[in-house]
């Protein structure tokens, strides 16, 4: 009997490490509820960058899928493809059509290609413009899109800020 007791003392103790996951589950539940509440998806994927800050508006309409033109302080993109560079929010005279004196040549060429391809767009164009840009720059883009067969301009804004 004493031998047995001694042997039992020599045996390594079974130390099970039980992790208490209750508090972690609580945290995840709260996080999940919060995420589900704020969950919002959009039909249109908009890529923002540091030079593109959209103006805020109280209009809460969702954008529909259409041709996207984004104008930041440094570049003009058509469907995420950079077309023209801007310096301090203005187009350089070299990028402007010499005959017309107002439309942006590269944008006009690309839009004319698209207007032939996508009849279903029905002349809709989604313009994402930086809030600090002058109307002059926006006007040049809107003029070009209208002349290239996209007269229905929709201005992108950030909802309620």
């Amino acid at each position: 009997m004493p031998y047995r007791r001694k042997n039992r003392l020599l045996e390594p103790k079974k130390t099970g490490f039980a992790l208490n996951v209750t508090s972690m589950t609580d945290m995840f539940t709260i996080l999940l509820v919060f995420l589900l509440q704020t969950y919002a998806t959009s039909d249109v994927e908009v890529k923002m960058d540091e030079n593109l800050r959209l103006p805020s508006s109280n209009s809460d309409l969702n954008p529909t899928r259409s041709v996207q033109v984004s104008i930041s302080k440094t570049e003009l993109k058509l469907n995420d493809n950079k077309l023209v560079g801007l310096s301090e929010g203005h187009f350089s005279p070299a990028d402007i059509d010499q005959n017309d004196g107002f439309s942006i040549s590269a944008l006009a060429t690309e839009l004319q290609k698209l207007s032939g391809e996508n009849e279903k767009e029905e002349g809709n164009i989604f313009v994402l413009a930086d809030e600090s840009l002058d109307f002059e720059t926006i006007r040049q883009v809107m003029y070009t899109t209208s002349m290239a067969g996209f007269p229905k301009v929709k201005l992108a804004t950030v909802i309620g800020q």
Partner: protein
Amino acid sequence: MKRKHFRKMESEIELDLAPLLAVMVKLVPVLLISSAFVQVGVIETELPQVVKESIQDNKDQPDKRIELVLKENGSIEISRSANGALENFSLPPSASGDFDLALVRQKLLELKEKDTTLFSVELKPEAKVSYSKIVKIMDTIRKSPNGTKFTVPGKSGAAPFETDLMFPDVVFANLFSKG
């Protein structure tokens, strides 16, 4: 024997939360990635039929219009033409040098109350006016303040229609004028 049975009833049931946790750990990143935290909207209004008809009427009657010239210095020139008569108003800039939105709202509310069938406004911002200021003006004039309703007479015997929309149809009138 009886005591033994009682002890069995007292035993605790341990709930295994590990699978639940595993599901949550997977679900949280999925939601974080797919959710749009910055929601993008569009300035374009889906309008009631009566309003759409009135806008079309406004376009058919070029002498019945309101024009807003947004100046670089923050002042606004409003001109309203109706039945050949032309009225001009000049709104000074606010103390901060921006457009006085409260004054614009008040003036356009007055014009709207005079003729509730007017829904279109021609905007003429000057070249150096910033885009964010133009959007603010468009926001200000789109709907009436404090939900004031206007009664639009129905066309061809239809019942009058109530709406809080002031000037939802904005046209950039100087888009094609160069210089």
